[in-house]
């Protein structure tokens, strides 16, 4: 049951990821990426991380992809549509990618540490409560640092995108 669902979500995620890279029109890429994120959030549900699944949909599909679509709407994408890939000299990059993928897959498949089928039993009780206790107690400093980074990014994006006034 779980395996069937996982295979379904993984197949659709890989197909939509390929569409992201291969599509001519950036709008099509953005929509395919949205579909891919939805599949990944379904995989998170299968991994019993419902909070992360919801955060994934809110932040990626709700915020980041809308930002992308706004920028696509603001700027003229027509002339960039004509050429999909960098002209010439793609062979070294392709060889590098094949090598990278083959290496990672061989390492994952040949190691016996990844063949666990039964996950370790989670502690009893409310998972979300335990997660947030860990987040806000043990990881309070990184959390505050992340909030400062988000504020800096907000201010930086406004300053960067503002029209020069003189």
């Amino acid at each position, binding site marked *: 049951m*779980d395996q069937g669902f*996982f295979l379904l979500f*993984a197949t659709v*995620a*890989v197909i939509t*990821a390929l569409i*992201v*890279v291969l*599509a001519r029109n*950036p709008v099509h*890429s953005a929509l395919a*990426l949205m579909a*891919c*994120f939805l599949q990944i959030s379904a*995989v998170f549900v*299968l*991994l019993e*991380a419902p909070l*992360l699944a919801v955060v*994934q949909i809110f*932040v*990626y599909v709700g915020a*980041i992809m809308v930002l*992308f679509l706004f*920028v*696509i709407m*603001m700027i*003229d*994408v027509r002339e*960039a549509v004509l*050429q*999909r*890939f*960098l*002209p010439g000299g793609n062979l070294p*990059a*392709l060889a590098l*990618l094949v090598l*990278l*993928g083959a290496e*990672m897959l061989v390492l*994952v*498949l040949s190691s016996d540490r*990844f*063949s*666990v*089928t*039964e*996950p370790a039993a*989670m*502690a009893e009780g409310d998972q979300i409560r335990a*997660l947030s206790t860990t987040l806000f107690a043990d*990881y309070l400093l990184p959390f505050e640092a*992340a909030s400062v*980074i*988000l504020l800096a*990014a907000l201010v930086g994006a406004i*300053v960067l*995108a503002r*029209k020069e006034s003189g």
Partner: protein
Amino acid sequence: MVPLWWHISLGVVLFVIGAAGVLLRRNILVVLMSLELLLNSVNINFIAFGRYYADFRGQIFAIFVIAITAAEVAVALGILVALVRNKSTLKVDDVSVMKG
């Protein structure tokens, strides 16, 4: 349950596809979207390991990755809008002013 290496392999495949987008595509917008794909494939790994070893820190790290990604996209798209206003191009190989 699904074996752990299925999740890891899904992460690997998505990572390679995203890296292909970053390395091969010409359009800056698609390059940025492929970067999102890269970060997401890493998130799958974090959460899968966190689940299979019953450790919350995988999920917590994934939350931080998502927060940093949101900041990165905001700044990157701000830079992109400023760039298009000055140079009116979306091709990565036209933006080589800092190239030696």
